[in-house]
Every structure is written in C-alpha cells, then in structure tokens.
C-alpha cells in the first residue's frame, strides 16, 4: 500500500511542475500587463514598477525566481492588491472556499448515495424515477441558474435565509451556497450509485452471503464496498467541478473566497495572484486524486496488485 502510494505521489510532482510552467508562460502570452489602466502611466513610473516586481528580467529568469520563492512557500506580492502578498490574501480566502467545497462534497456524497440506494433497491416504483428526476434536474439547472432561483425563493420570498454575504461563516449564510454547489454533484452521484448498486446486488459473492443467511447489515457493508469504486473514481472529477462551480457561487452570493481572485486576477493580469490560485487549485485537485487512488486501492485490492511491477 505504501509503495502504491509513493508511486502515485511521485507522479503528481512532475505533473504539478508542468502545470505551473504551462500556466506561467500562457499567462505571459496574453496581451496587456498588470499596470495597464485607463490612463497610461508615466513611462518612468511604469519602468520602476516593473523593476521592483522584477518583471523587466528575462522571462526564463522570472520563472526560476518564481519557482524559488514557491519552494519557500511564498507566492509573492500581489500586483493588483498593493500592500498585500498573495499569501495574505489566501490566508483569509482559502479557508472559506475549502469549508464551502468540503461541505458541498459531503452533502453530495451523502444525499447522492442515499438517493442511489433508494433507486437501486426499489425495482420499478418511485425510486428510479426519483433518481432520473434528480439527474435531469442537475443537468437542466446549471449552478448559475439554481443560485438566483434559490436566492429568490428562500431568500427574498420566504425570508428564511440570507441572500448573500459570508458573515464570518454563520451557518445560515452557508446553507444556500452549499446546496447550490452540491445539487449538480448529487445528481451525478445518485445516478452512478444507482447503476453500480444495481450491479453490486447481483454479484455472486453477495448472493453467497445471502444464501449463508448473513445479517442484513453485514450484507449491506459488502454491497457498498463493491458499489463504491465507480463513485469514488468520479469524486476526483467532482472536486474539480465543485472548484469551478465555486467561482460562480462565490460571485453570486458575494462570498470572499478564492473564486473572485481567479477571475479578477486573470482580468487584471495580476500574474502572481493568478499563479497562486493555479498552484493552489492544481495542488488541491492532484491531492484529491491521490486520495481517490488510495481509496480505490483500499476498496478493491485488485487495483493495488495490478499496479505492481
């Protein structure tokens, strides 16, 4: 298991490096610079600014300088938010986004699994329709449609929940964003779960357990273990989807998370800020995929044996 983990982790490092390099040079390809504004800056001032931020050095040197500071855990100063380093910006924004994302994923997994379970064990009847309905709902209503509708219904019409804002993470402020983020993932998880549970229930070893008269709870555990791999392998993609969805959700609900740095940073050519978000997001996605790989190997021993040289 450790060996498997190490081989997977070793692959993630070069991947992260290539992503950083790709993002760095792509970003510089885009026209415009961080100090462009409506009124052109005095050329001397602009040159000074560029010198201070070391943007006048050759691109390759800049890249190595960036890698160097990154190795020390320093994302550099923000070019747009003067007097703030990217680390300082992330220190407040990252926990917020992480909290939202984690909760949304948990809700998606729990509700999705529950729905899928209901769909799989009730043949015909209302169960599968419920799953189909949820799936269609998740597809037809994208995040940026669900969010304003929820705001309208629960916030403005019923006055049940605040329409936006973060309010230091008070739970009423978190409900709508988490639901919005989780809904599309619930749809997909429910569908996957239903399909794999239906398969798992028909597997020979489950039939054998039943024939031996094992207790229900025992059988349930085995069924879940057999049914989880497809859902678990989807979770890597789900994490990436939740990350992207959170850009929209944070915009709509006015939440001071990472999302706005993503878009604003790219539009304002805030190179260090954008690079910081890319590094954080890519690292998060890679780490999550690593966890998913480990979970898969734990659930299904064939995975870890096959990967042995």
């Amino acid at each position, binding site marked *: 298991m450790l060996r498997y983990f190490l081989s997977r982790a070793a692959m993630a490092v070069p991947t992260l490096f290539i992503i950083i390099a790709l993002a760095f040079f792509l970003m510089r390809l885009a026209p415009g610079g961080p100090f462009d504004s409506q009124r052109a800056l005095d050329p001397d001032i602009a040159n000074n600014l560029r010198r201070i931020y070391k943007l006048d050095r050759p691109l390759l040197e800049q890249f190595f300088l960036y890698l160097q500071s990154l190795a020390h855990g320093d994302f550099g100063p923000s070019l747009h938010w003067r007097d703030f380093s990217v680390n300082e910006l992330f220190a407040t924004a990252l926990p917020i986004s992480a909290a939202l994302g984690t909760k949304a994923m948990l809700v998606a997994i729990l509700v999705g699994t529950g729905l899928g379970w209901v769909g799989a064990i009730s043949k015909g009847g209302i169960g599968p329709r419920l799953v189909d309905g949820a799936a269609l709902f998740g597809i037809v209503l994208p995040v940026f449609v669900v969010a304003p509708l929820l705001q309208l219904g629960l916030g403005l019409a019923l006055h049940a929940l605040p329409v936006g804002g973060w309010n230091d993470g008070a739970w009423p402020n978190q409900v709508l964003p988490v639901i919005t983020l989780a809904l599309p993932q619930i749809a997909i998880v429910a569908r996957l779960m239903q399909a794999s549970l239906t398969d798992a229930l028909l597997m020979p070893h489950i039939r054998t357990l039943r024939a031996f008269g094992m207790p229900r709870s025992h059988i349930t555990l085995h069924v879940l273990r057999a049914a989880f791999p497809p859902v678990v392998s989807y979770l890597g993609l789900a994490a990436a989807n939740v990350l992207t969805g959170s850009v929209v959700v944070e915009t709509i609900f006015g939440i001071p998370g990472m999302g706005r740095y993503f*878009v604003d940073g790219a539009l304002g050519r805030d190179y260090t800020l*954008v690079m910081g978000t890319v590094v954080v997001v890519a690292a998060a996605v890679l780490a999550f995929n690593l966890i998913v790989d480990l979970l898969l190997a734990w659930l299904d021993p064939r995975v870890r044996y096959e990967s042995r040289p």
Partner: protein
Amino acid sequence: MNEPARAAPLSVTAAATRNWPMRTSLAILGLITILCLIGPLLSGHPYDQVYRDYVLVPPSLFAHPFPVEIEDAKAAIARRMHVRIEGARVEGDALHVTLGAGKRIDPRALRAFARSDLFAPAKIAAAGDDGRRLTIDVPLKRMIFLFGTDANGRDLFTRVLIAGRISLAVGLLASFIALTIGVAYGAAAGYAGGQLDSLMMRAVEIIYALPFIFFVIVLVMVFGRHFVLIFLAIGAVEWLDMARIVRGQTLSIKQRDFVAAAEALGATTPAILWRHVIPNAAGPIVAYLTMLVPRVILLESFVSFLGLGVQEPLTSWGVLVADGARNIQGSIHLLIFPALFLGATLGALQGLGDGWRRAGIQ
C-alpha cells in the same frame, strides 16, 4: 479474432422511432432551433433596439402601449411642451388630444410625440383660438413584448432567440473543434502505441489536472473576446475525453484483420486511420458527442456568465442569465426565460444522448 464491436446505431431517426424520450428531445431541440433561426425575423424588434419608454416591461401577450402607459406618456409630453391637456380619448389605434396653452402652440413642438416609443408623428386635425388650442391625431405604435424587456428597454424575446443562435452555434462549433482535435490526437496516439502513446496520454492527464476554467480564461484573454474565438478556447479544453475514447477504440481496432490487410496492401498510415480506424470508432464517438455538446453550451454560458464571453450588444444565454440574476428582485422574467431556454436545450440534448446510448446497448 475479436467480435465486431457493437456500435451505436448511426441513424437518429431509426433510434428515435422506438424511443419516446428521444422523440421528445428531438422535437424540443428542433423547435428551439427553428425558433432561434426565424424568431428574430418575426418578432418585429431588432435585438439591439433600445426602447427608452419600455424599460423592464413585464412579459405580456397584449400589444403595448397600455392605457396607463399612454396616460403617463401623454402627461409627460404635455409637461415638456408646456401645454395643458383639455381632452383626450383613444380610438382604435390613434389618440385624439386637445391641447391648450396661454400662447400660440408651436406645431414643431409636436415632434415630442414622434420621439416617444409609444406614438407615431402627430398630425394636426384642427387649430382654434388663434393657435392656442390644437386638436391633434396621434397614431399609436403597437408593439408586443412577449417576454417583456430588459433594463435597457430591449425586447427580451428577440434577445433570448439571438442568444440561442450564439449559444447553439458556439456549442456546435466548439464541439466540432474538440471532435477534430480529440479524434486526431486519440487516433494518432492509439495507432502509434508504445512510448509515444504513453507520452501523449500522460500529457492529456496533465492537462486534466489544470483547472479548466483558468485555461478558458487565459485563452479568452489571449484570443480576445470575440465570439468566433470563444469556441476555439472552449474546443481547446474539451477534447481530452474524446482523445481518450478514440485512443481506446483505436487500440482494439488496430488489432483487427482488415487493418493488417490494409497495411499489407501498402496503405499509408493516415489513410488507414481515416478510412478504417475512425469510421469503426464512429459509434462511441457519436455517443460521446451527444454528451459533449451540452457540456460545451454550459461552459460557454459559464464563461459568459463571468463576463468573459460574448460582448454586448450581442448576447448568449449565459449573459442573459447573468443579467437576470442581477435583477431578480422585481424583474424575474429576465431570469426565467433565458433559463428556460437554456434548461430545455440542455435537457433535450441530454435526453437525446441517453436515448442514443440506450439504443446502442439494446
């Protein structure tokens, strides 16, 4: 030798006749496409025409101006002309007003009526009291705003349909680009095999880990915000799955006898790929394509929602939904109609894809 791969049927109509969700989906898609193509011509409003007197009008089946609107507009114009309204009645499609003032009324001031979006130029029917009293006929401009108007006073019906053209066009074109890149890349990797194959697939895996929204944002920045270039950016990030699927197919197809035969007969590699490999992978490719098109439409809306997509006065469903989300308090029709069209299209495309795959399995 392998069994022949079971491919999805390539005839939509054949599959659709057996399958009601697919039929419904096709009907909805066809309806929306036709509406988007000819609707803007029939609506009577250019998509960028601003009606300053009809800002945020709610949707209605009846023709404007309504009596209240006439009342308000008439009073406002009279104030601007510094005249009194001594009598007014609406008769059919015309308004008959009698204006009175302390001094002679300058007939040129009547242009105020023509400047309004409610009235056509006024004609003087009778003048009396030394020109201090005018009786005029003002024809009404009858207009229907089926879906209401937006915050700039533009007809939402026309705009939703124009947006549909853009969204559908971007969906198709971006999918086509993703298809081209993905099929070429996947077939090349699968056919080459060995070191080159694993290298190429490793690259795909790396791009997978890149947060795609960042990728799209940077590409939009590099290319500029022109609508023709947005589908390039989207197509450039959505080809990864296609490449994987085609590679997988190619790996099994290249083991088959007819490929060996073609090789033996001296066919060139591109010819083998084009004539033998890709056509045999068509089933899974088409099946995946039905999933790709809604994804691309959604992605375009997403990018537009963030303000990085199509620019005003052109519009897409994402832009309109973003507009609606900003105006939910009071003018909910701005959100409902574009969301309805977007949702119906996504749902129908999904239903089509599901039906297709199910038909392929049977």
